[in-house]
């Protein structure tokens, strides 16, 4: 791969991702509307698609207010971290054969490291806002992340054992005959749950909890700083969906009548849709219930899964 090609891939991936994240504003609103018996945005442009443009422009032109009681530099830094860390995670994702920014042999570990990094934006944002609601949101966010990081990592180890690699392209290649969702169903379900908690989407949007903490850790943010949290959330959904596709649903693999990239995108949007459907249907558990559920139920299950996978893998390989 030449340097020019590489640069083109980087720019292309960045461009597409940011557009997907922005486009998801429209997708989410239309899908929610569909499931909630309403119309949703349908005025600007065909099917209301220009709402994306309007929303983005609005965010850019809103007053970018930094509260006088806030810790100024941390307050500015926090939203950048969330977008930065999620975008960095994407560099290890193989969208199709050859279309990957950096084919790291520690792909999964890099992804886990970056997603842990994202929690700093919540904690720092909530702390720097110097607002009680934001602080409560940040506290909830931090404990939720700590709880769910642990078994997010553990749930992936089964896949690593079966494929024998941390490299995502290798993992996809290892699914040539059978997707890992078949051999690792428990791992998939737990990774999905952890992924929702990780992106703090409903039903696990506890750090924001609109009806309790109003907006939680980003209560004081406005303008494009809020926009960064917003985009960060959509990028997070895209990232978790992309990881699910790569790790459990054979990545770009699919029947040959469509190119590999198309298969990847189709699968990706299926899971993004699932995220939105969850938001439309489930209530939110209480913060301590979520944490308790994580430590008391999911952790034992994921450990058992690891043990059984290891035993079976050893047995088969003799």
């Amino acid at each position, binding site marked *: 791969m030449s340097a020019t090609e590489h640069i083109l891939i980087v720019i292309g991936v960045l461009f597409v991702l940011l557009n997907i994240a922005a486009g998801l504003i429209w997708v989410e609103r239309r899908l929610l509307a569909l499931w909630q018996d309403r119309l949703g945005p349908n005025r600007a442009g065909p099917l209301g698609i220009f709402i994306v443009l309007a929303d983005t422009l609005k965010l850019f032109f809103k007053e970018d207010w930094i509260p006088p009681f806030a810790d100024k530099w941390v307050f500015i830094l926090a939203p950048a971290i969330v977008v930065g860390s999620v975008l960095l995670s994407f560099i290890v994702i193989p969208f199709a054969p050859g279309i990957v920014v950096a084919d790291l042999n520690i792909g999964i570990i890099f992804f886990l490291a970056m997603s842990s990094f994202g929690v700093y934006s919540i904690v720092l944002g909530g702390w720097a806002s110097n607002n009680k*609601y934001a602080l409560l949101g940040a506290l909830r966010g931090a404990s939720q992340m700590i709880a769910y990081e642990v078994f997010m990592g553990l749930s992936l180890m089964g896949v690593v054992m079966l494929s024998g690699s941390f490299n995502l392209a290798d993992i996809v290649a290892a699914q040539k005959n059978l997707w890992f969702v078949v051999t690792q169903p428990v791992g998939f379900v737990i990774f999905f749950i952890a992924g929702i908690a990780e992106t703090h989407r409903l*039903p696990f949007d506890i750090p924001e909890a609109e*009806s309790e903490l109003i907006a939680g850790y980003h209560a004081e943010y406005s303008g494009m700083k809020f926009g960064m949290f917003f985009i960060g959330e959509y990028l997070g959904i895209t990232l978790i969906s992309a990881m699910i596709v790569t790790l459990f649903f054979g990545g770009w693999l699919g029947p040959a009548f469509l190119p590999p990239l198309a298969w990847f995108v189709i699968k990706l949007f299926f899971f993004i849709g699932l995220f939105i459907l969850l*938001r*439309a249907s489930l*209530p*939110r*558990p*209480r913060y301590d219930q979520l944490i308790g559920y994580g430590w008391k139920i999911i952790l034992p299950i994921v450990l058992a899964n690891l043990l059984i996978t290891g035993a079976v893998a050893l047995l088969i390989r003799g």
Partner: protein
Amino acid sequence: MDDADSILQRLQQQLGVEALYQQQTVDDILTLWVSKERIIPAIQFLKTELPRPFKMLYDLFGIDERNRNRYNGLPMADFTVVYVLFSFDRNCFIKLKVALRGEYPSINSITSIFKNANWYEREVYDMFGIRFEGHPHLTRILMPLTWEGHPLRKEHPARATELGPFKLEDEYQDRQQEALRFKPEDWGLLEHGDDADFMFLNIGPQHPGTHGVLRIILQLNGEDIVDAVPEIGFHHRGAEKMAERQSWHTYIPYTDRVDYLGGVMNNLAYLLAVEKLAGIELPDRALVIRVMLCELFRIASHLVWFGTFAQDLGQLSPVFYMFTDREKIFDIVEAICGGRMHPNWFRIGGVAQDLPNGWQRLVQHFVDYFPPKIKEYENMVIRNSLFKARTKGIGIYTLEEAIEWGVTGPGLRACGLEWDWRKKQPYGGYERFEFDIPTARNGDCFDRALVRVEEMRQSLRIVKQCLENMPAGDYKSSHPLTTPPLKKFTMQDIETLITHFLNVSWGPVIPAGEAMSCIEATKGANSYYCISDGSTAAYRVRIRTPSFPHMQMVPFISKGYTVGDLLSILGSIDFVLADIDR
């Protein structure tokens, strides 16, 4: 009335014959004047010593008597404090009145006997300036702390034009804002505990979880609620004061707006009291029309509660489905009344118009459409395990606590008491209908939800019976005080014409006296206590709303739970801010 006589005798034995004076009222509720010194022993006796006691303080309010025209031999008073108690064992009310003399009188507080007297006494203090000795925290409750005067006193102006032009000076604004600052020490709350500093979190007045302008200040240890102080009054519009300057007839639209989800149900509570005073009997058709509309509104109100409750717990979609169904009810209401949320459609002695042609088709359609929908919502919300996790075992109170705090309606039935005023003291023709009283046992948020969902089914049953058995006849009484009167003879004899003209221009003159109504409103027991001095306007109207005592109970039932649980509790109580503040 043997019961009343025996209570009177027991009280006379206890307090002495001269301490009591019985007043005759048209609502057949035992009404006794008690001297100021004896009120504490009297209430204590009724609550604890009397067999089948009066366990609930149903209402407590004041009356400014200084402008009275007719005393009819009643004790002379400048102010009166009225205590309304209720006994579930006897199924009867008792009213105790205390005459007070002087410009700013005082009386002993009964907060040591009834916990829920706290807010009621603060309200009386706020509205009349009557002081309650021994009250733990006697401050204004509905009016701003900086308010001058006491609104329900007769000398306090009722119209903005009497107050002079309003200017928002900076200094004035600062003072108002300063008054809103929460000082924990005023409420006896500590800033530091044994091993932790507490955080005070200000929820509201603008907060998506409070369903209106309500402010709750939480004392938090981490996320655990140590104590809570609700602050109400942001929605206070002086509905009781307005009754004193509107005619009996033109006050009806104001009642619509008290429990603004209950629509015509409020009209009913008010009109039942007025009709008792006037002695009007309603024709069957009017009764059944009223019942049908009321039950439709009960379903509409419960739908709003159901949707917003689910939304409070983070479930975003149900509220849209339920508001769509509520819209279907409003379509019926609109076809019948012309209005939607505030139809202002009941009249003294009947309803405003006869039902429109084809109303059966609309109602029939809804009766067929709705039952599968309730089933669907039950599956979607009630049977959801996350919903159960958020509501089961949360915000529990026992039956005794519920009665002590004055809880009525679904919240009371969720504790296992089968109590519904439509059945126990039927009013407005409810005795003709077949329906069950849903109850539950645990008194937690989940049970309150269950009861309400079942109530929608029962209401639908009543609507169905109305639909199938709508009697023929007049939609208004032929009583002369019916307003506006039937026009049958208006153009034929001069007497009817004159009555018609007077009733429509000045408004009807309701005979002097006093009467209390009590209905099972959407949220609990709603009462209007109307006092007429024989004029075209009420001398005093007291509105007893269910949400007021329910809100007072929030600190008690939310202690020890977390911020997230508070939202479940607030949602399960189903209050309306206008219903609290009036």
